């Protein structure tokens, strides 16, 4: 090969959003079918991305197929905008999507790609939430064959999954699923809502925003359309419980940083070995802190 050869510029450059137009069109067709069949894991040809599978390639392909000039993208990882996964994905979007803005503020974002959390701030109709999914099929714990799982999903047959939940109650007096809680969408398909905590599951129910879930490794896209029923799988006599943030006195714990008592908290251990709790959603924590400072300033004045 000629050592002085250089690729012509238009061949060396990537198209907008990294994916080629045929890939985007396929993802787009899949998204529409996923919305039409709420909760159904719609198969698609997941493309190779310049990052390992498991780092959010499914969510990223959905985001890149949606995004266009004028959009404002927010990327979060476990609620935080500044963790490695979120920063890398955001930088990749900035690199491949010129004229697309990025933000850390939930309120300003038109597209939110998230790993493991639904933002604390209520979503609006003008927003789309894209969740990264590692394992899309909730039935995989009870049935190894995908062909059989597809029939079970089609028939809405979740008896074996319910048996598993029942066995948990018999053995441990509690359903032992902390995250990825199986959730029934519009009364038919049960989805794995990605590893969001139980706290976030009721927030999928009748959400005004469209929620898209992308699993890159498993090559599936599914959706929770806006204003759609999303009900965690439970028994009539054992109600669904979310995380308990009360202390020994029964008081709801507050965030150690901003003091709010209405957010999902992460448990941290400081240098002296003491436990403390802090908001998992960094943007929510910052905005609470900012509004708290505003009100103290007003009081001081």
């Amino acid at each position: 090969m000629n050592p002085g050869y250089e690729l012509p510029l238009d061949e060396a450059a990537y198209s907008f959003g990294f994916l080629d137009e045929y890939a985007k069109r396929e993802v787009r067709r899949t998204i529409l079918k996923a919305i039409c069949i709420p909760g159904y894991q719609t198969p698609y040809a997941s493309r190779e991305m310049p990052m390992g599978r498991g780092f959010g390639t499914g969510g990223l392909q959905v985001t890149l197929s949606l995004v266009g000039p004028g959009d404002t993208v927010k990327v979060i990882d476990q609620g935080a905008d500044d963790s490695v996964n979120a920063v890398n994905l955001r930088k990749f979007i900035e690199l491949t999507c010129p004229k697309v803005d990025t933000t850390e503020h939930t309120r300003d974002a038109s597209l939110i790609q998230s790993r493991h959390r639904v933002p604390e701030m209520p979503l609006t109709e003008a927003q789309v939430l894209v969740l990264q999914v590692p394992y899309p099929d909730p039935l995989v714990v009870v049935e190894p064959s995908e062909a059989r799982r597809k029939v079970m999903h089609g028939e809405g047959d979740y008896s074996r999954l319910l048996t598993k939940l029942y066995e948990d109650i018999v053995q441990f007096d509690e359903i032992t699923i902390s995250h990825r809680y199986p959730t029934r969408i519009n009364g038919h398909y049960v989805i794995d809502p990605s590893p969001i905590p139980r706290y976030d599951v009721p927030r999928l129910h009748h959400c005004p925003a469209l929620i898209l879930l992308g699993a890159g490794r498993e090559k599936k896209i599914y959706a929770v359309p806006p204003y759609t029923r999303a009900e965690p799988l439970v028994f009539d006599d054992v109600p669904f419980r979310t995380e308990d943030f009360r202390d020994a006195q029964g008081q709801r714990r507050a965030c150690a940083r901003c003091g709010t008592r209405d957010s999902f908290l992460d448990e941290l251990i400081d240098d002296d070995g003491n436990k403390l709790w802090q908001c998992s959603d960094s943007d929510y924590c910052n905005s609470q802190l900012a509004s708290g400072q505003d009100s103290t300033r007003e009081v001081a004045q």
Partner: protein
Amino acid sequence: MNESIAMHANPKTSPSIWQAARQQKAFRQLMQAFAYPGRTLPLAEVGEDTTLLLLATLVDGGCRLADPQQQLNQDDLQRLGVTRSASDAADYLLCQGTRPLEAEPRLGTLENPEQGATIVLQVASLAQGSSLTLSGPGIRDRHHLQVSGVDPDWWIRREAWNAHFPLGVDMILVSEEAVIALPRTTTLRYTKGAR
């Protein structure tokens, strides 16, 4: 895509519909339409053909299109690059609302309901005509809309096609400038006998 072909495009429609950036904008409108069934969303801008923009956004060599009423000309079909097929095997069907479909569209299978067809139905107007009341996912309570230029036979057959969820067909109603989506989950009530 196909910018060299687009240079000699159909004079009736602007060549911009073949460009990636335009299709991205169109898709976002279309996705809004599917997320919120019944909402009328503007699609085409001045000089653009809505149906062709919609097809250029969605179809390519990876899917099959049926055009039983021969509404697309040869040039546009070539630009779309889509595989043509019979109505009962197509992923996408292009039909006129005034003429009932003579074949049965694909409804998908229990294992693969996404193989149910998407019907692109051309209607006269999405602002006036007989009233429909919609409910289902994506609709907060109920949604009312008016459509003209659709044979009532379409609604009767849609009900039959979508009777066994998850099997069914999804529809996109297309007027001269806007679209409304009717996913298979949308329940539709209409005044019988109205056109």
